[in-house]
């Protein structure tokens, strides 16, 4: 019976590590998350649908998903560019730029929020310049997108960078010898190799942007139907005493997160098959 679940190992501590892992995970993650689902199942299906797909909620998803998509696209593009430049070219202060990319991981989101709001606000450096040209960033969807780009940027770079580093120069050289142009090499050799990691980066950065709260609420203006993001709506529902609504939207977002994680696993699986073994 036991053999089906795990292969016996000579190393001790199986029971202990198993116990700690699952106990901790159950107490901290599984039990709390299951309450969310239990709470939602106390209502009828109609209630659930009207809570999850109310006009305000739909608009909030539109803002959240739409802008996350935009920022994930921009991040993939610039993430690739930055990774390319850092891996391939000689640039001054490479170590500095490289460390800098992780800044959004290290910077608390609230700090990012007030900083970006100030910077792009009417009295900030960039904001005052844009305002003079009739361009408003703070409290508009553009502002939200900027905050999302900021917090999820490292995901895009850090997933592409190692694959670019790993690229075998011999493949490119032999392609060159066979007379392929640079563009052709990029198109046929480089791009297919990094495509899976590009997709991984895209998904991660999308997921992160979608869930982002701390930095966005400062810059969003939080106007229902217009600049209200889905995580904020969860908080608003709580503040309006609407526990069920809050739980329902949480469940919806959580499910989307799970689906994204599955996508990630799938991409990684596909990637392994695609490239053979790495």
């Amino acid at each position, binding site marked *: 019976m036991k053999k089906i679940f795990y292969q016996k190992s000579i190393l001790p501590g199986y029971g202990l590590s198993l116990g700690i*892992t699952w106990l901790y995970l159950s107490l901290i993650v599984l039990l709390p998350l299951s309450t969310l689902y239990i709470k939602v199942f106390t209502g009828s299906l109609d209630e659930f649908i009207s809570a999850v797909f109310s006009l305000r909620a739909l608009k909030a998803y539109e803002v959240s998903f739409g802008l996350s998509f935009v920022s994930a696209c921009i991040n993939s593009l*610039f993430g690739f560019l*930055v990774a390319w430049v850092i891996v391939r070219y000689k640039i001054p202060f490479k170590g500095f730029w490289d460390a800098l*990319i992780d800044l959004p991981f290290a910077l608390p989101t609230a700090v990012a929020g007030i900083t970006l709001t100030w910077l792009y606000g009417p009295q900030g450096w960039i904001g005052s310049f844009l305002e003079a040209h009739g361009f408003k960033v703070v409290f508009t969807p553009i502002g939200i997108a900027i905050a999302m780009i900021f917090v999820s940027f490292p995901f895009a770079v850090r997933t592409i960078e190692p694959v670019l580093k790993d690229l075998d120069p011999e493949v490119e050289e032999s392609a060159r010898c066979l007379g392929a142009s640079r563009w052709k090499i990029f198109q046929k050799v480089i791009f297919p190799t990094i495509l899976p990691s590009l997709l991984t980066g895209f998904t991660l950065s999308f997921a992160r942007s979608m869930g982002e709260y*701390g930095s966005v609420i400062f810059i969003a203006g939080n106007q229902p139907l217009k600049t209200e993001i889905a995580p904020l709506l969860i908080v608003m529902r709580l503040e309006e005493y609407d526990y069920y609504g809050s739980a329902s939207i949480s469940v919806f977002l959580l499910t989307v997160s799970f689906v994204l994680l599955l996508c990630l696993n799938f991409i990684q699986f596909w990637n392994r098959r695609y490239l053979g073994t790495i």
Partner: protein
Amino acid sequence: MKLKKIFMFSFRFILVFIALCFLVLFLVIPLFVVFYNAFSKGIGMYWGNITREETIEAIFLTLKILIVVLPLNTIFGIACAWYITKYKFRGKKLLLTFLDLPFTVSPVVAGTVFVLLFSVNGLLGGIVEKMNIQIIFAFPGMVLATIFITFPFVARELIPIMEEQGQEMEEAGRMLGARTWQILLKITLPNIRWALFYGMVLCSARCVGEFGAVSVVSGHIRGKTITIPLEVEILYNEYNLVGAFGVASLLCIIGLISLIFRKWIEKRDPQNLYRQIHRYGD
């Protein structure tokens, strides 16, 4: 031919230029803004802002949360990494998916979950009230929410390395009659020490900076359930922009230290860090 070379050079130049512009615009300037604003009223004012009673209380509380969260997450991280890398069992994939959860779940959902669970009308609210302990709007709730957000950081750093290193050394140790704790202390831990250390640094940085989840479960009581990021928000709401950026600069410094630390480890142990960067790419 020469023309082509010039073209390639300028193409390269433009790429580098765009990339660096992007980095400056999105990363360097915001970082600079924090310190610029923090010191905009002079260094005396800055010092005054970060040594105010409320700020110190916030720092104190944040450290208290860290002291509870960090050891728990470290123990979990070591156990979990050991469990995942040393044995073959079913459900490993599922477990790894759970470890990715905090990267994709909104922190707000994390906070909401604990409110639904422990508020007076919540699932466990009755029990909690009977036992006369306060969980949400108090220290335990904030610890729980922080753990939810930070639990996989240590494990995530350890798994790739322990996988890489295999288990021959441990097995050899076992053959020679070493006890469990001897294997752990004398063989495994020295091998993974840098990754472990770095995981703890990452976990601490995230723990100190967490805003969304903690904000939902904190009762926002000044001097009691206010962490450093929440203090930043309060100061910001009190029109004290300079103060808010002053406190924010403390968080920035913590963040920068973790970045420098990362570079430092990379130099000592390039192979390991390379592995952990690799994890999403492969």
